[in-house]
């Protein structure tokens, strides 16, 4: 390779540009803003989740800054795009940490990205609060002593399956699972396979479908033949609405259970031409707008669409874990830097949040409540609130 003087200068220029605006020196801590990074899939096949997270973050920043910030310090948000993959998650975390200089990260929404991000937050010593990653392996990879910088608010299906299977066993003896073909669906299917055995439910079949492939009829026909008493749907609202139309088109009448975002306003909005299409569906979740109607209204007013589930999950992590931790950190140490936020998260114990008690155990997992939400008459109804056992 012929490297001329010109190209050498070029490389130097490129490096210099890369740091455009780099201010050396230490910033004054007291009145400087608290920087929060939100990492999700802003591009790629799952970009819809990133959009929800982004909108939520913008709303939260405005909401908190309107109140004067936290302890008088404003919130400044930055975004990282992990495109749903571990490699890009590494880039997103490094950018948020080293370029945007965030004090805490909320993310990564998708398990592959979470897994890629974990070693990096440990290396860079930035606290990360996971809001939605569902791979059960994550529990082994966070907390003391493995990775003291990562925390997770949401439960995964291994944690939910027992309680949900118990509930299902009260009304059904055989179930077919329809799950999206990603970490969420695969993880859930594996967890319920185990849990069903415990509660005497026969797993008739498990079908996986790729998101964005909206022709479910061939496999619905197969399930019609297998004739389970109930179906467990592990899918998000955007696929679920198309699925339910075809479910009814084929004439299936099984009892409906769900994990994902089926019992949501998003779903009901998609099927507003036939709102009772999924009546009787019971979903095991940990969030529903009824827990915070003001949030739902705020969202609708601002974005003109029904509230998005991934936005709400990011909001939970912020509102009930990260923001209280920041406040606690400032109260205790006068600072909201990475270490003091991390320490505050470890000591956090917020008792009465709408989602339950927020307290991270030694594995840095919180145990918020499981909710059973039912769709009835085109409306959402909380059936039961169940505490999840560690």
């Amino acid at each position, binding site marked *: *390779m*012929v*490297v*001329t003087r010109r190209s*050498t200068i070029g*490389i130097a220029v*490129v*490096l*210099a*540009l*890369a*740091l*455009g605006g*780099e201010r*050396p020196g230490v910033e004054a801590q007291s009145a400087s803003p608290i920087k929060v990074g939100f990492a999700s899939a*802003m*591009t*790629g*096949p799952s*970009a819809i989740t990133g959009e929800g997270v982004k909108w939520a973050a913008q709303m939260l920043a405005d909401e908190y800054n309107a109140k004067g910030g936290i302890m008088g310090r404003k919130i400044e948000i930055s975004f990282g*795009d992990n*495109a*749903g*993959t*571990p*490699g890009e998650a*590494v*880039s997103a975390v*490094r*950018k948020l*940490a*080293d*370029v945007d*200089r965030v004090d805490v990260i909320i993310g990564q929404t998708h*398990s*592959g990205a979470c*897994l*890629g991000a974990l*070693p990096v937050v440990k290396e*860079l010593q930035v606290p990360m609060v996971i809001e939605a990653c569902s*791979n059960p*392996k994550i529990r082994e*990879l966070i907390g003391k002593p493995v990775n003291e910088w990562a925390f997770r608010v949401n439960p995964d299906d291994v944690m939910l399956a027992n309680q949900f299977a118990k509930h299902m066993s009260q009304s059904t003896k055989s179930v077919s699972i329809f799950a999206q*073909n*990603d*970490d969420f*669906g*695969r*993880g859930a299917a594996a967890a319920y396979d185990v849990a069903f055995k415990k509660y005497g439910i026969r797993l008739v079949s498990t079908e*996986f479908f*790729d998101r964005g492939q909206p022709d479910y009829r061939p496999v619905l026909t197969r399930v019609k033949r297998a004739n389970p008493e109930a179906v467990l749907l592990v899918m998000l609202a955007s696929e679920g609405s198309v699925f339910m139309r075809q479910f009814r088109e084929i004439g299936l009448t099984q009892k409906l259970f769900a994990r994902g975002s089926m019992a949501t306003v998003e779903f009901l909005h998609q099927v507003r031409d036939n709102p009772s299409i999924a009546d009787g569906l019971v979903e095991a979740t940990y969030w529903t707008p009824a827990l915070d109607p003001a949030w739902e209204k705020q969202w609708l007013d601002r974005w003109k669409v029904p509230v998005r589930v991934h936005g709400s999950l990011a909001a939970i992590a912020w509102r009930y874990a990260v923001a209280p931790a920041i406040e606690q950190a400032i109260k205790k140490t006068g600072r909201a830097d990475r270490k003091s936020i991390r320490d505050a998260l470890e000591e956090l114990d917020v008792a009465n949040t709408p989602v339950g008690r927020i307290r991270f155990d030694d594995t840095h997992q919180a145990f918020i409540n499981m909710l059973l939400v039912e769709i009835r008459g085109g409306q959402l109804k909380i059936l039961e609130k169940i505490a999840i056992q560690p």
Partner: protein
Amino acid sequence: MMRALRFTIATAFLIAVPWIVAATVPGQQRYVLHVLIFTALYGALALSYDLVVGHVGSLSLAHPAFFGIGAYTAALLATEARWPFAAALPAGIAMAGLVALAVGVPMFRLTEHSFAMGTLGFALVAQIVATNWVDFTRGPLCVTGIPKPQLGSLRIATLPGFYWTGLAAVGLVGLLYHGLTTFRLGRAFHAVRDNETLASAASIDPLKYRMLAFVIGGAVAGGVGTLYVSYVGVLCPGELAVSLSVNLLVMLFLGGVGSLRGVLVGSVAFTALPEILRMAPTWRMVIYGLLLLIIVIRAPDGLEGVIRRRSRA
């Protein structure tokens, strides 16, 4: 003499980058090094792709599959069978090369569009298998805990360490590329690319040379895949997405297909530039699409062609 001197200075400069970066941008050095590592890996990948696209003129869309096969081979051997990096890397290279051999033989019987579609079909099937053969590849639950490379007592676990590894990789691939595309072999490749009939008439067997480029390109892609997973530590089937071919094509055509410098410039532009410009990612893709369109129509030699024309004028 001057050339050798310039080359040595450039190499010294590149090797010294971690210190230069630490000195010039202390707060962001880790990020810059990370971007450079990805740039180096992408550069090596793009060079391996250019062997096939630029030098024998076969528009293959199978490259993501070879990258993925190398990645999965190394990842699974390292996590399941505890193979050390020194063994996993050649295994990844060999596996990708073997699959390229197996796939190439039938594929090269096809012409033009059919070849492109056939290789695309293969890449799609590879991704579907990686996603769904969960018992073997873990599917969307991903292969985790891929260890950092350990070569005897040398452990590559720091950013400068990975940077030098990436630099060595792109350097070696660049040397290989240079060796393959100059001298008689290079001329044979170009004969096959530019005028296949004439080449056969001159007893240059097009199939043999195409297969050579394809297998070597595929094997190198597998090697890059191995390095990539050793760096990231996690492997998910999404990394085999066909969109990688799109990214590689942008790199090749932006920089200058068929040219070492051009492809490297294209890789830098593609990987590093967005980090500098901080564009919203979706807008970035729109711009890439438009750039690729304009370049392939107006300036198919890419930036390299523009530079060459300037220096001649």
